């Protein structure tokens, strides 16, 4: 062991007495306060262990006498956020949905709120992009084809009362008769061709046209434009809920499937439903009542500066 009393010539510093392969440690004293700081950190940790959750146990960590928890903090923060949103919610609740677009700021808030609620309640069937699933008959909400109406108020009604939902007496409901036992195979084929011809996908024929006029036109209208009042889909457009393949169309005529959607009046508050309607309407296919131009907020003049903070789509990174 090295001699403690020796001093290092160039620096005039004494050796501590440790040596490794000829490398020796010099004693450069730490400041005393440094030592006290170290003791203070030990003391701090002792206090911290008592006050806050610290020791991990099997189920959870020790609670700490302050009762603080990250979950509790989250609940508190969410409560504060709810409180901050309360004013907007009240405003939306007090505004008739047809008047919402007149207030671009409020409409923006409603769309943003609806986008959040959509992710929670609607994506399971309609998909994250609201594009639906053709193979299951979940409709696409982005397009401009609406079975029960695409105006704000109509969407809100559908959301509230559902489609063929036993939870509401006012639910949207209809049942297309099954023609599989009425028509024979040739007739079925003929009428399928005629239905497809309405949108130019096939050649019409006399049998099909006649059968259509007798059996279908009452609801789907003679030229196939459908009737939103009855929930009869348009047959003269490019959009087919259950597919535009002749076999799929024929199948739907013979043994129609009837989609159902739960109403949300028992699960969601009216404001959330209203915001969802605004969001669905904003997906690019929303319809406007009557003279549509009056409803749309004109793109002129003053725009509230905080309006742009509302990311209508992805709720993402705001105005960055």
């Amino acid at each position: 062991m090295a001699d403690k009393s020796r001093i290092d010539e160039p620096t005039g510093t004494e050796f501590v007495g440790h040596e490794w392969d000829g490398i020796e440690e010099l004693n450069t004293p730490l400041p005393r306060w440094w030592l006290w700081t170290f003791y203070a950190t030990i003391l701090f940790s002792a206090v911290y262990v008592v006050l806050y959750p610290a020791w991990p146990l099997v189920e959870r960590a020790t609670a700490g006498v302050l009762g603080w928890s990250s979950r509790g903090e989250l609940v508190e923060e969410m409560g504060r956020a709810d409180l901050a949103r309360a004013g907007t919610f009240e405003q939306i609740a007090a505004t008739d949905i047809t008047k919402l677009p007149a207030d671009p700021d409020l409409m923006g808030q409603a769309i943003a709120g609806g986008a959040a609620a959509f992710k929670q309640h609607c994506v399971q069937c309609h998909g994250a992009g609201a594009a639906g699933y053709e193979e299951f008959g979940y409709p696409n909400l982005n397009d401009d084809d609406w079975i029960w109406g695409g105006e704000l108020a109509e969407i809100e009604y559908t959301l509230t009362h559902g489609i063929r939902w036993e939870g509401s007496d006012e639910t949207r409901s209809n049942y297309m008769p099954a023609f599989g036992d009425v028509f024979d195979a040739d007739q079925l084929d003929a009428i399928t061709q005629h239905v497809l011809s309405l949108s130019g996908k096939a050649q019409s024929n006399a049998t099909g046209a006649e059968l259509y006029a007798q059996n279908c036109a009452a609801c789907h209208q003679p030229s196939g434009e459908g009737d939103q009042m009855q929930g009869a889909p348009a047959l003269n457009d490019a959009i087919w809920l259950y597919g535009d393949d002749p076999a799929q169309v024929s199948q739907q005529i013979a043994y129609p499937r009837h989609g159902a959607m739960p109403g949300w009046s028992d699960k969601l508050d009216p404001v959330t439903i209203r915001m969802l309607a605004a969001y669905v309407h904003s997906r690019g296919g929303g319809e406007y009542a009557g003279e549509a131009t009056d409803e749309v907020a004109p793109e002129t003049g003053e725009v509230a500066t905080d309006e742009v903070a509302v990311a209508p789509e992805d709720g993402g990174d705001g105005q960055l």
Partner: protein
Amino acid sequence: MVNSDTLASTNGEAGGRDWGKALPSAKADPIAATARHAPSQPPPELYEKRKSVHNKRIDGPFRRFKWLVMFVTLTIYYVTPWIRWDRGPYAPDQAVLIDLANRRFYMFDIEIWPHEFYYVAGLLIMAALGLFLVTSAVGRAWCGYSCPQTVWTDLFQHVDRFIDGDRNARIRLDKAPWNAAKITKRGVKWSIYLIISLLTGGAWILYFADAPTLFRDFFTLEASPVAYVTVGILTFTTFWLGGFMREQVCIYMCPWPRIQAAMLDEKSLIVTYKDYRGEPRGSLKKAKQHPDEYGDCIDCLQCVAVCPTGIDIREGQQVGCITCALCIDACDKVMADIGRPRGLIDYATLEQCEAEAAGKSTHSTWKALLRPRTLAYFAIWGGIGGAMLFALGTRTHTELTVSPDRNPPFMLMKDGTIRNAYTLRLRNMEARPRDMEVALAGLPAGSLMWTDRIGAEQAAFQQIITVPANETRIVRAYVTVPATSTVDEFAFRLTSLDEQGESDIAETTFASPTSQP
């Protein structure tokens, strides 16, 4: 006055001087040689108490320069937030403002947005290169003159001197018992510390909000809690680091001295004691009796007495030396008094010292400043600065970014056309609202665009959108092309409808059932 024996003994090894060896004090320290290191003594202490520094008042060119730097830096610090700068009604009128809430950084005519953070990164790179440049040229000038720790420590030391008297009085007071007089003096002194600290912390927050408003709110207790917390923390750190920790911050806490020490070379200006001229040191009386045996240093310890970090510069370069040059002032004064030439302690490069010690002619200090290393640093530093200024001067204040919807990538409409949806970000970096035209480029006639606010019945090839002042407006745009179109790439063109006519183009894709995923 060069003593050849000393030189021979200290200058022996090939390749230059061993500056550590040139210090007789450590070796010759009688206490070190006996009391501390006698074998019978207990093992060395691993911790030691701080030795208070009571630096003596000194006047001289460097002290006056320090006053000037202190005045300028403190003036900049306290006055800057109050400078107004007219940017029109839509932007703050504070010349220098870090607007965290709105994510803007204003500096006179320059306005930095978060997406331009590379300018801030560039500034930081320039600061680092500036440090390299200054260090390689003039050593630890930052430490000695303009570091806030140095400036505030200096300020507090003046307070000490003002309340307690100069060095000797302060040493006496330190040792004195805690009687009424000492308690009063300490109370007054620490109160002044506290006021200075409060002003320091208080001025800091003014950079982050409108200064006059915040100033009023602060005293009417209407400012945000974070303002009070910030002031509290900065008051405490100023009080503690400036008032009590002082040179220990430089010696134990700050990384700069290490970094800067690593950057010094034999051509860097440092404050150095010319031992070849001063050694062997001896009192004035001894030197008079034996003029040939002694160097210029009369061991008066004035250089130690005035040092704000309490070191002995005669021990050579050390981490505690912040190169404030007060010892030069002190030594020059003594040299003048005893009729010797000034500069026994002086700003010099190690190379100069070596040449001087060997009796050769020395290069001028200017030559030390202008050498490839400093010039290279300056070139890089200036290059980055110039490039940033150029970029800032020529940047457009209109920008468009586009992200196409991926889910669903395209949408079939009733009439058979394909619709794509896009999220457009229209950035208006002017401090006024601007009408901007968004147009489709590269799509066939008959293509239509509408947005979340402009309904489908107003769909057109281009739309006019008002973007608020100093904002990015997010617009969800819908685009359809005629059913016959096979286009799969196009662009949005944004044009500001004002005399500037700035434009930006953002290319994107148009997805359809036939397009390759």
